[in-house]
């Protein structure tokens, strides 16, 4: 069935909407790699990835494939009852690996709950990424070991932590950089606004990486903002880069530009990485209830991994040896994740008191004592009584 309203040979009248709605005003999208894997030259950003060797391209590819595999395996583990929840990152591999690979080890990263790809680049072991999702610990890793804070569930509050940490770097006189990740929805939160205000006021060495994956759970980004998200930064006096978030080279270049500015005392930068959350918000969400299937198809055509793979093919780098190596690595990490998850030791009941206060105190001691006696009351008869 069809209407022939949209004639082929004549112009349709200009819809009144486009005149009154300034929805699309932002700068050009930085893209160095087209969806078909074609390397696009850029007068400014080419310089920033001129050192990326063939070997590094292959390694970026490997990381993205491994990260996707971690995501798939963790999703399966949740469906199998091994995890309570998992926030998939399918589709955002380039935005995470491209930025995650740009940092120095002394830079400090403040992620959301979805930055498993960044965590992988920081060296976090896959089972540690799911520890909190299994309910076995309050957090999965030691932040100071990887210079990466643990997963933040509150929307946008880590932007404040990032700015605060950056102000600390200033006081120390160091040249490391603080990085705050958040999503499109978080830009509507007060915390992010405050973080941007303080970062600009103090010209703090912080990079804000906003992965615009187009959906804040079920709210589309067009509802969140009538201007492009990168344009919001201008209101705070923070320079912004709008980059194709499914282009790992463009994200890498943009992150390096921002890090360099921060290290040299140039203050904060806001990066909008335009990407797409191809899966659900979390494993407890069903995106088909609010999202058009067409949209997913459009974005599948811009897949971040397929595009780098196409570049490797064009350059003749994608041989059997590389594919075998990458697959073996992904298999190995997935098996490590599965085994580490299923065999994860359950926490002791008294562990709940461990991370409440920095120092012991009498009030806590009393609670511990009460709880221990309560647990004691189960011993003996409980074995038969409770299943």
């Amino acid at each position, binding site marked *: *069935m069809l209407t022939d309203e949209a004639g082929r040979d004549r112009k349709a009248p200009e819809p009144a909407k486009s005149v009154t709605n300034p929805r699309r005003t932002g700068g050009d999208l930085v893209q160095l790699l087209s969806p078909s894997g074609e390397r696009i030259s850029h007068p400014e950003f080419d310089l920033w990835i001129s050192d990326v060797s063939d070997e590094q391209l292959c390694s970026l590819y490997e990381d993205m494939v491994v990260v996707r595999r971690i995501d798939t395996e963790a999703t399966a583990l949740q469906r199998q009852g*091994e995890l*309570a929840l998992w926030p998939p990152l399918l589709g955002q591999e380039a935005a995470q690996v491209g930025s995650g690979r740009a940092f120095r080890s002394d830079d400090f990263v403040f992620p959301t709950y979805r930055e498993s790809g960044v965590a992988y680049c920081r060296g976090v072991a896959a089972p540690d990424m799911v520890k909190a999702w299994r309910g076995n610990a309050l957090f999965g890793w030691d932040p100071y070991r990887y210079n990466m804070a643990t997963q933040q569930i509150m929307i946008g509050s880590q932007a404040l932590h990032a700015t605060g940490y950056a102000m600390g770097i200033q006081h120390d006189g160091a040249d490391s950089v603080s990085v705050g990740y958040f999503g499109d929805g978080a830009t509507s939160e007060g915390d992010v606004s405050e973080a941007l205000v303080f970062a600009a006021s103090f010209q703090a060495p912080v990079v804000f990486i906003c992965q615009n994956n187009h959906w804040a759970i079920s709210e589309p980004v067009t509802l969140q903002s009538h201007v492009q998200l990168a344009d919001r930064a201008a209101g705070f006096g923070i320079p912004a880069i709008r980059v194709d978030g499914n282009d790992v080279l463009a994200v890498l270049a943009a992150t390096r530009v921002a890090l360099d500015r921060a290290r040299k005392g140039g203050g904060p930068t806001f990066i909008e990485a335009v990407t797409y959350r191809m899966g659900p918000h979390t494993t407890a969400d069903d995106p088909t209830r609010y999202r058009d*299937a067409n949209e997913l198809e459009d974005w599948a055509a811009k897949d971040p991994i397929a595009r780098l793979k196409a570049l490797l093919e064009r350059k003749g780098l994608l041989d059997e040896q590389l594919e075998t190596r990458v697959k073996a690595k992904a298999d190995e990490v997935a098996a490590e994740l599965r*085994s580490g998850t299923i065999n994860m*030791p359950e926490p002791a009941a008294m562990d709940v008191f461990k991370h409440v206060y920095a120092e012991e105190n009498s009030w806590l001691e009393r609670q511990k004592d009460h709880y221990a006696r309560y647990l004691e009351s189960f011993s003996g008869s409980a074995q038969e009584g409770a299943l």
Partner: protein
Amino acid sequence: MSPAMIKEFRLPDLGEGLTESEILSWRVSVGDTVELNQVIAEVETAKAVVELPSPFAGTVAALHEQPGSVVEVGKPIVSFEVDDAGAAPSGEGAAPGGAAGADEPKREATLVGYGAAVEKGGRPARKARTFATPAAAPQEAHPAEAAAAQAAPAAVVPAPETTGERPRSTPPVRKLARDLGVDLTRVPGTGERGLITREDVQRFAAGSTEGAAPAAVRPAGEREIRTPIKGVRKYTAAAMVQSAFTAPHVTEFLTVDVTAAMELLERLKSNRAFAGYKLTPLTLAAKAVLIALKRNPTLNSRWDDAAQEIVQFNYVNLGIAAATPRGLTVPNIKDADTMSLLELSAALSELTDTARAGKTTPEDLSGGTISITNIGVFGIDAGTPILNPGEAAIIALGAVRKAPWVHNDELAVRQVMSLSLSFDHRLVDGEQGSRFLADVGAILSDPGMVLTMV
């Protein structure tokens, strides 16, 4: 040759504190070999429809729940027969805190419903694989099996020499053999320990056909194209089925002389006010529908089964069926009844441009109150359109074509068009549907009639 054991998969809490889920469908059958993480079922929770990946590699030993059943979290839904070696691909045996063998109850890691996680280890007791010969008890065969056997080609009916041992195969393979009319006792098995595989049966069936019919040469893979059902196609199918089987459809037809309307269209096109606007028979027909709806509001309503109410809308969100590169979509024009002909024309253009560009939003697609489908652009005259789910009526516009017609009591060549109206008979009676269709026809055959209606 590692010993096998049975592993149960208990329904996990799939979404932050759910206590139950509904099994929608099984993607595997008993006897199927599954890999780790292979999708085995589709399950609907209160929050989402999700696919369940298999936690084991092995063979499906039993499905404990039927599709459609609501299962409590923690209850076993499927059992697998797994090799000891394959039982714990993750090295479960190395669990800290002792020998977490198969006999050890393991707590289900769910937020609620920590059911009793008793896993039965060891090898299942099995009977020896000796059966009566198939020919010995034909009368006792299951009716369906008997029917299938009768339907099988005569060539394979004579029972061959039987050995008293049923050939080793799996239930799906046995079913395939039955469907293809292949006697398994004659099929050599190439699988492990003589297991007859799907390929063996297919090869045998192909072989026996080759003998009978001279080869029709067609390269393999060209006889059919299989496309996964997903995206717009899947959505459309579900909507059509839902609509066709919940709303009792009635379709009425009316063929009208639209010569006057076509002349009006020509005059409007040369009118300055309409310069730059696209005017087509659809534009006028849409306006006619909107005018006729004011007089026949029953057609602009909805059967709310949940509330046991009929909802009559005081506004019209006019749906227009559009063929897009991805398939059928029915975006609607919000508050179309408040629009002038000019505005309606612009809205129709925008709607179709958006649909063709594939940019139609879910919002554009929801909230429609009545729909038009313009099958005339394909040169078709009439059909029985299926209601857009939730709507009470849909009208199909046929092609405008020159035809012999009785005009002023004489036979003349006139421009005529067929209108096909389907309506939901639960809330629209024949009288109301007929009056509405007659009104639309009256406007299109004599646009001046509008003066008597508004």
